[in-house]
């Protein structure tokens, strides 16, 4: 009997930093609470016992979310039809692994419908921000009549997928104001006709297969978030996830030994919801993208392409990377090489799938890789925690892990044929939905690099900016771009004056609120559309003041006068509401020091300095004139 592993994470029974994981946990247990230490301990291939032990320390030291955590805490209600309590430690530890503080409430055994169908005091008092609906396959198969013919089976299938479950999701939304994570169902039933199972309408196994096939689309249609448990279970197989002896003993459908993998599956959805999916894949070259060393073996000597198993495996990894980039992951190269050598295969090798144009940032030199990864993050204007670094060399991996603990560094199998699956299994790039922005992101970064090279060639910044032909398009929040706005509000950390997080429902309420306004901004230039790059929320306050509740911007468009142009739009909006002044607030976090003095730079006067509690500023509008920028404004009101 195998056990699902978190195989991309380091082995806790191998000493790191001179200590075994178990010793480090004991030290953490007796030390002052430190979130980062626990987060580091969560990033190991933990079995269910180690997960339980870490969870004990976590819940003892952090009964409340730690201060200064930039990710909104999650209050998860776990509702199920069988035993689910044994999964809670793994859920909390998986959330920790993704930097999220999670608290869990479970309902009474098997009473999810009562809890969703009528006001449940305990659940109301808990005030969930998310509900995980985890129903066991036997419960679902109970909706199929025992002697069902084809028509009855079809009806039952529709009943579950189009009525029962969507009703639960709607109830969750209307009663508790939160979205639902809906898992697919484990194929636990013995098959009665083998490959011909689909011909038997009364087959429970076939019923579950059919429902699983329809569930993703139904979730999408009705606004639930789909968690594909059945697909994940194929990695180690049903026997690793489901133990009939534990079902009959304790009604545990997911075995405790699979709980860490289950927690991780949910943790990825939490991370994606919080906008924390990784954005950039940084690749080593020699023995990662091709076999051999380009500097020694030369263009003809490296192993790449059809004809040998390893040559084909390296092609497969490149193909995988290219497909990731087509759906929004930015690719970068970080290699210890002379740059000319490193670029040669991208330019000349006939079997290369990746070409220079596919690489958003190319760094090849002899410097420390951790430093180079910092450089890549800064050139692409993304956070280090949204980078995944793939390198065949264990030394480089542990060096980067140690110097930059926030960078995701998966363990890589020594056999190159296994690498694409290993990176995919790590799930760093998992999303819950695909936006047009995701599909265009790589192009946007590529265009950004062209802008940078133009910047390097243009000596005078003003003439460079004028040459960009920038237009800032803006408008009020609307239902079509609300999900993208929510995503930005919840993931922007660096250029974010107040780091206030709002759910989509909060923003829907705001759209109906006469005393507040929400603005979105998108920027186009001669290289393309940068997409939605800034969000502002203003609120009417006393004495003719408009409070800038939220102001955030994508770092991709820094240094182009977008802040000034944005301010002129805010000021115009405020004036139109009869305001005589704008009040700006800066709330410091660990990540937003880049905007610490933005309001002074924009001509605001400091009103009050409360130190780490923040600063407030005022800008009288009566005689204020907007600064000149190279940006044309275009209203979409």
């Amino acid at each position: 009997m195998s056990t699902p592993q978190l195989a991309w994470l380091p082995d806790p029974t191998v000493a790191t930093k001179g200590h075994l994981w178990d010793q480090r946990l004991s030290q953490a247990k007796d030390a002052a609470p430190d979130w980062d230490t626990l987060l580091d301990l969560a990033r190991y291939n933990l079995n269910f016992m180690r997960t339980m032990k870490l969870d004990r320390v976590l819940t003892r030291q952090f009964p409340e979310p730690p201060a200064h955590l930039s990710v909104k805490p999650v209050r998860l209600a776990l509702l199920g039809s069988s035993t689910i309590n044994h999964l809670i430690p793994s859920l909390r530890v998986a959330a920790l692994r993704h930097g999220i503080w999670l608290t869990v409430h479970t309902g009474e055994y098997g009473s999810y419908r009562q809890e969703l169908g009528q006001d449940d005091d305990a659940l109301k008092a808990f005030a969930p921000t998310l509900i995980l609906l985890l129903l066991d396959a036997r419960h679902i198969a109970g909706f199929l009549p025992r002697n069902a013919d084809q028509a009855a089976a079809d009806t039952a299938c529709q009943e579950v997928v189009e009525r029962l479950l969507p009703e639960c999701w709607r109830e969750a939304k209307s009663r508790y104001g939160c979205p639902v994570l809906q898992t697919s169902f484990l194929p636990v039933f013995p098959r009665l006709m083998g490959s011909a199972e689909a011909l038997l309408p009364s087959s429970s196994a076939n019923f579950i297969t059919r429902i699983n096939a329809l569930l993703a689309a139904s979730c999408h249609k009705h606004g639930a978030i789909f968690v594909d448990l059945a697909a994940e279970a194929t990695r180690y197989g049903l026997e690793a996830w489901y133990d009939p002896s534990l079902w009959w003993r304790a009604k545990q459908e997911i075995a405790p030994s699979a709980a860490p993998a289950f927690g991780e599956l949910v943790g990825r959805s939490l991370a994606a919801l919080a906008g924390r999916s990784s954005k950039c894949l940084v690749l080593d070259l020699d023995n990662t993208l091709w076999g051999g060393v380009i500097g020694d073996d030369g263009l003809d000597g490296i192993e790449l392409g059809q004809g040998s198993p390893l040559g084909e495996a390296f092609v497969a990894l490149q193909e995988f990377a290219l497909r990731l980039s087509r759906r929004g992951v930015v690719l970068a190269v970080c290699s210890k090489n002379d740059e000319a050598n490193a670029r040669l295969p991208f330019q000349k090798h006939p079997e290369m799938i990746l070409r220079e144009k596919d690489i958003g940032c190319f760094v090849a030199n002899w410097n420390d890789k951790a430093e180079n990864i910092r450089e890549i993050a800064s050139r692409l204007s993304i956070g280090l925690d949204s980078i995944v670094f793939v390198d065949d060399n264990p030394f480089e991996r542990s060096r980067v892990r140690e110097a930059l603990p926030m960078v995701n560094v998966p363990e890589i199998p020594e056999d190159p044929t296994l690498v694409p699956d290993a990176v995919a299994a790590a799930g760093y790039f998992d999303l819950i939905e695909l936006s047009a922005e995701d599909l265009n992101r790589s192009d946007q970064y590529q265009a950004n690099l062209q802008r940078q090279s133009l910047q390097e060639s243009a000596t005078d910044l003003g003439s460079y900016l004028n040459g960009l032909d920038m237009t800032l398009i803006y408008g009020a929040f609307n239902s079509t771009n609300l999900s993208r706005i929510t995503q930005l509000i919840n993931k922007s950390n660096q250029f974010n004056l107040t780091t206030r997080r709002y759910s989509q429902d909060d923003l829907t309420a705001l759209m109906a609120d006469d005393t507040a306004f929400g603005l979105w901004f998108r920027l186009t230039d001669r290289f393309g559309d940068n997409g939605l790059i800034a969000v502002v929320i203003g609120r009417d306050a006393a004495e003719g003041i408009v409070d800038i509740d939220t102001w955030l911007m994508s770092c991709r468009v820094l240094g182009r006068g977008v802040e000034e142009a944005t301010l002129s739009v805010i000021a115009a909006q405020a004036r139109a509401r009869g305001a005589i002044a704008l009040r700006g607030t800066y709330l410091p976090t660990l990540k937003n020091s880049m905007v610490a003095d933005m309001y002074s730079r924009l001509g605001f006067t400091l009103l009050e300095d409360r130190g780490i509690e923040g600063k407030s500023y005022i800008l009288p509008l009566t005689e204020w004139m907007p600064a000149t920028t190279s940006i044309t404004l275009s209203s979409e009101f």
Partner: protein
Amino acid sequence: MDARNNLYYLKFGVLKMNRNDVVEQITKIFQDVFDDPNLTLKDDTTAQDVPGWDSVAMINIIVAIEEHFNIRLKTREIDGLKSVGDLYETVLAKVS
């Protein structure tokens, strides 16, 4: 010695696990499950003697033992356990 290495040597017949090894390793598992590093077990210890030893803890013990020793305990074997001593013997029969 690390349990994993133990099993490695066992597999190749270099090392046989004796009753003391089994007792020691199962005691460690109990200490982890009940979060009590000072917990001691006797052969006649039963669920009544250990605070918190309910059906949930029992499953955690069984699953941890199965994973640690890489063995499988049958439902009838689990149901037949009267004391910790029975557990030692059942495990020992499978690993020696």
